[in-house]
């Protein structure tokens, strides 16, 4: 290639027009609020958490040089001698193992129900099932705590009326505390129900018609057509469910307090991390626990994506 040819090739490279540059500038301008939020409230705090995890910083002094020391991996090593770290992760996993299937099956059931042409007043039921979702979580939890009070809660009053002599002491008995919180989770299935409902309504009716012609019954159609067709939404709900379960905090704190009562049965991992940071002012160690939570959520989500490759059907995909 001669020098003249090379010059002509460079000059042939497309140049960014003024209009294009202006569009890019406006694009960044409109992205700016999100970018500020992302840097200010997510990226910098994540970076600070990583930084703090290598220090012995206590929350009771100003965050300034001289008020903390670098302790290397000491905070990470402490996890292995922390008597509450593994039990609190087990509490979180127990909750997730009950809560995630419930958080999928019940809204799916409601979605199928309100999607049914045979249901009279479908819109009314749709509204009723969604209604609890609009109640703020704190208010809902406080009401729910009263509802499940062993003595005066109406659920136990109902159980007694039905002849159950000793109904569960929901929030005083370690055995019942997690199932009781899982029940609370059912109150908020309205969002998932709506998403699943939208997905159900997007399943092509021709598929059902063809299956009917082939002699498939309702159960077969549900498992062979409906479930595969809505599997991306199921996957989405399960993934969000896993992340929410790992972050479960507010209802647990409102009901079990900072001790995770009864007898630490509600000491969820995020609550344990909060106690270390804000009750015991041990910000360095709390940062390690926060990072463990972050990594655990990432791994769980990655595992979900791995299985999704085989089990989730994307219409129009390869």
């Amino acid at each position: 290639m001669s020098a003249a040819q090379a010059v002509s090739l460079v000059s042939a490279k497309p140049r960014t027009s003024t209009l294009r540059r202006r569009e890019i500038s406006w694009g960044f301008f409109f992205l700016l609020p999100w970018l500020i939020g992302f840097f200010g409230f997510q990226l910098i705090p994540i970076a600070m958490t990583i930084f703090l995890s290598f220090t012995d910083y206590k929350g009771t002094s100003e965050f300034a040089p001289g008020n903390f020391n670098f302790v290397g991996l000491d905070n990470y090593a402490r996890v292995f001698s922390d008597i509450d770290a593994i039990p609190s992760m087990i509490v979180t996993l127990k909750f997730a193992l009950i809560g995630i299937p419930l958080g999928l099956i019940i809204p799916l059931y409601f979605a199928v129900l309100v999607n049914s042409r045979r249901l009279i007043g479908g819109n009314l039921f749709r509204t009723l099932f969604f209604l609890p979702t609009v109640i703020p979580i704190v208010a809902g939890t406080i009401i729910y705590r009263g509802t499940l009070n062993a003595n005066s809660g109406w659920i136990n009053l109902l159980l007694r009326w039905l002849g159950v002599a000793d109904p569960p002491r929901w929030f005083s008995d370690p055995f019942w505390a997690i199932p009781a919180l899982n029940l609370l989770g059912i109150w908020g299935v309205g969002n998932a129900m709506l998403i699943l409902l939208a997905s159900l309504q997007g399943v092509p009716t021709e598929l059902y018609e063809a299956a009917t012609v082939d002699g498939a019954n309702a159960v077969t159609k549900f498992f062979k057509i409906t479930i595969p067709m809505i599997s991306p939404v199921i996957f989405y709900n399960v993934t969000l469910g896993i992340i929410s379960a790992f972050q479960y905090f507010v209802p647990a704190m409102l009901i079990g307090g900072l001790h995770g009562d009864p007898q630490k049965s509600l000491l969820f991992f995020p609550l344990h991390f909060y106690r270390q940071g804000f009750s015991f002012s041990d910000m360095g160690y709390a940062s390690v626990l926060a990072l463990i939570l972050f990594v655990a959520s990432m791994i769980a989500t990655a595992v979900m994506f791995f299985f999704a490759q085989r089990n989730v059907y994307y219409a129009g995909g390869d």
Partner: protein
Amino acid sequence: MCVVLNVVYNTGTNSYDALKALIAGGNAPDIVGPVGKMGRASFQGSWADISVLAKDAGFDLTKYDPSLLEFTKDEGVLVGIPFALFPSFVYYNKALFDEAKLPYPPQKVGEKYQGKDWNLDTFTELARKLTVDKAGNDATSAKFDPKTIKQFGFYEQWTDARGVATFFGGGLPYDLKDPKTAVIPDVWKQSWKWYYDCVWKNYFMPNSDYYNSDLLGQGNTFGTGNVAMVWTHTWYTCCFDLAKTKWDIAVVPTINGKITAKLHGDTFAITKASKNQKAAFSVLTKMVVDQDLFQIYGGMPADPKDQPAFFAALDKRAAPNKINWAVAQEMLKYPDLPNHEAWLPNMIKANDLFTAFRNKMDQTPGLDIDAEIAKLQIDLTSVFKAASP
């Protein structure tokens, strides 16, 4: 000097988080309070030495009772000027006594109750008589049903296991020669066993299911009118309808030959991080004698000459009730020594164990209390040993 005060108001556990955020951000407030020993312990090492500031300002601290000054010290450092005292006594609901046709409890030390000494046995019996089920049977009756209690005889309201223990006497949960080894005082063990039996065998104190129920106001038990007696401090005048409830106060019973009325003492502290410590101290000297603040915080003035005005103002709020405030003054003579909020190694974590211990007693029937106390002692030792030297 012109001082402009900017007040930041926070309550409950939120106040801890808010203060931490202010300190961490380099915006520590100059004055914090009213704050007691527990609150200060959460910010151990954050408080300025008041004796140095007082000396610089020429402020005379000798006018305060030396024992009060001692009470306001944390680990030997004076962190405030004595401000308000909160003696404890028995609040009782006169209407429930009238309904049960029982005489009111004694208001003077040494006074008898129905011809008997005002001791633990008399008190326990009275509390059982004042505990009533749905069918109207009291807790002394064979027909009494503990699953349908509608009215309780007694409750040790809003305190942790150390506060509960102090009903039988003050103490420290460690070996004085080696503060990193936990040793639960015998008197505390007795108190916890008695307390546990009151909840799960005698039923005159509510378990957690009951006190979290609407029947007992989700914890503010006396305010519901469904508890005949509670043992708590003067600050509780904040939290129930003083005028509508028919109530008065009585002395704490004698237990093991002595009376113990646990004492709280709050003050305002100056943060070490304050950039205006001298001005803050000047403001502090005005705050600790402000009559309005005593009323707002329900604290009996530390200086006896300010006390009549404090009680007169409370009387106005409690009218038409006429409260015998001499009981509160009398109970000041029987403080818990050592105090139930006294310093402990690794105090926040140790207190956390005490709170969890009380919660467990309140929530769990059928516990072997001796075994639980032994376990608590082991856990405390481990927490004490983890304390910084």
